[in-house]
């Protein structure tokens, strides 16, 4: 009962935050509200007992991405430009996509359903054998780092590639501008 109330309250706050983000045109406030949005979703993950995910959401969504958005605003502008097209078409696209997604959830198993396909494949083996084979109390860690170690290596490589990509884009632009300045000097 209490959990339902907490869920309703959290989802209501999520919706209000999203509406406030849409209505505002001061980007500083929008960035701060998107941090609030991340913290609220982190709380939702806690109520779903996904503490590891909540941890990541709070650290990345509310922490790092807020700082990076602020850095972007400092480089660009602090007010949203007036849209050049009417917002009717995007609204229709969003509503239709949302309706299709909701329709898609109708076929999904209930939350926590023990007979859901995801809970019948390898998860029972992991939960049953983890203590004997890996002997680590946090099963999430044993799955991430050992059973699915190859996947996590791939994820680390993705983070590495993303970092290299951002560095190439940002520092490449700066160097080109410096060359242009030197050309103008000479």
């Amino acid at each position, binding site marked *: 009962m209490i959990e339902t109330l907490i869920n309703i309250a959290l989802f209501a706050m999520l919706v209000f935050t999203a509406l406030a983000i849409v209505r505002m045109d001061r980007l*500083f406030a929008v960035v701060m509200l998107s941090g609030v949005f991340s913290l609220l979703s982190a709380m939702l993950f806690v109520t779903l007992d996904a*503490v*590891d995910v*909540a*941890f*990541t959401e709070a*650290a*990345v969504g509310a*922490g*790092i991405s807020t*700082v*990076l958005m602020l*850095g*972007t*605003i*400092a*480089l*660009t*502008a*602090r007010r949203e430009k007036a849209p050049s097209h009417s917002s009717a078409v995007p609204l229709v696209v969003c509503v239709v996509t949302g309706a299709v997604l909701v329709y898609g959830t109708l076929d999904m198993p209930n939350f926590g359903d023990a007979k859901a396909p995801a809970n019948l494949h390898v998860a029972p083996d992991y939960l049953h054998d983890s203590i*004997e*084979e*890996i*002997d*680590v*109390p*946090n099963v*999430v*860690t*044993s799955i*991430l*780092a*050992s059973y699915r*170690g*190859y996947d*996590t*290596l791939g*994820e*680390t*490589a993705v*983070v*590495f590639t*993303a*970092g*290299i990509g*951002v*560095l190439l884009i*940002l*520092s490449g632009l*700066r160097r080109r501008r410096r060359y242009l300045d030197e050309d103008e000097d000479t």
Partner: protein
Amino acid sequence: MRHHLILRVVTKLLVGTIILFAFYVQFHGDFSPGGGFQAGVIMAVAFILYGVVFGLRHVQSVFPIWLVHKLVALGVLIYAGTGVWNMVLGYEFLHYGSFNPHHMSHGQHWGILAVEFGVGVTVTGVMVAIYYAFAARPPHIGDDDW
């Protein structure tokens, strides 16, 4: 931010605690929520906070840009190197049991510790490197324009 006295004092108090918490999350990930990814982000937050409040020059004298760029690659090398080392010892790639063949789960502990450390190093490096790349460009907005 030369004039924000409270921010500066609080930041100085917090940075050490944040780094300590990052190490806790890193090496306690086997027992409690967290692991290399979260610890790497928290570690990066400590340096980013210091950079935001005290300026890029000061944080880069503590955590220089060449070191950050090396860390980005070093973490992946630690992770993949752990796997290759398993192969050298005659087991499959990323089969941590090879670290202690008589007691497989102890070997798993060492392997998990090593790969999580690799993840943490890469994530710290990438986050701080992206922050440096953003902050190094001259801003168009002054401190009071927000």
